């Protein structure tokens, strides 16, 4: 029996925020494959994650590979997009792994993996983790950029993994 299934996908047409809502509660874990490019020029843009529509629920995050990143940030910087100053076809890959997203009464954790290119001279690879303070089931996830919007053809694929 297949346990790794596509739930939904989304292709950006230049939104400031992308929301995956009505996430089914029938899986054990979620995997999000994100190919992102931001509108901010000459800088990485921070992708921020909002769980269930809230912006102040982050327990914190730590990343390996982000320059000048501080673990004291108390919001959910979850990745960087590729810089808009890159050529048009340069996007940044990001993978989020969310175990037990539907399990009640436990803090939700994220594992992140990805990379982003700033123009043509710099690439950042990153590994990260997030611990939210939220303990309820995750029913929606929203993503926005700190400095700009998502550019066309930024894509998100949401998969569910079922442990049974």
């Amino acid at each position, binding site marked *: *029996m*297949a*346990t*790794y299934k596509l739930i939904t996908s989304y292709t950006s047409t230049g939104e400031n925020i992308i929301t995956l809502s009505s996430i089914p509660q029938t899986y*054990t*874990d979620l995997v999000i494959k994100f190919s992102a490019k931001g509108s901010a020029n000459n800088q990485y843009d921070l992708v921020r994650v909002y769980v269930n529509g809230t912006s102040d629920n*982050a*327990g*914190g*995050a*730590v*990343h*390996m*590979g982000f320059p000048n990143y*501080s*673990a*004291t940030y108390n919001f959910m910087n979850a990745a960087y997009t590729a810089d808009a100053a890159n050529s048009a076809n340069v996007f940044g890959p990001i993978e989020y*792994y969310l*175990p*037990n997203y539907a*399990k009640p*009464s*436990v*803090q*939700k*954790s*994220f*594992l992140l*993996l990805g990379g982003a290119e700033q123009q043509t001279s710099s690439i950042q690879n990153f*590994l*990260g*983790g*997030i*611990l939210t303070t939220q303990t309820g089931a995750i029913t929606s996830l929203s993503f926005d950029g700190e400095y700009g919007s998502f550019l066309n053809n930024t894509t998100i694929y949401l998969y569910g*993994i*079922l*442990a*049974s």
Partner: protein
Amino acid sequence: MPTATYEYISSGNLTSGSVNSVTFGSGGTLTQAYTDLVLVVNGGASNPADIHVRFNGDSGANYTFQSMAKISGNGISGSRYSSGTEMSFTTNAYFRSGFQNASHTTITSYSNPYINKTALSRSTFGATEIDLVLGTWKNVNAVTSMSVTLSNSATWTSSSTMYLYGIKEA
């Protein structure tokens, strides 16, 4: 209809809150039907502990692993462990009480009889610690059992889960 290539195999029952070790394929019965294995652990531990793993019950000094880790605002650090008597899937992102850690490990070509077995793990302890660990079991035998144990005699908290999946070559 495409063929399913990512399938659930088994889980560890950790709900009692008193489990220290889980063995998949006890007695050498782990299925050989897949190409790679994926172990996903989410939860906490009664006291700070790493995930230690042995394959096929091998307790000899046959494991090597190296980590790249970051703790809080510190820089990235690296460590290498050779001739260990077990492999560690975590080195800095300890499991502990009061928090939900997450750990994701891929064991590649676990049934291939021509290569030493390798595992690649990424783990996070909440907001302060992450690590990436590459481990090698210096043995070409197929992995027929795998024990997953918390160090320091710790036990998994009752909210913890442990799932084993198989990825099949298409």
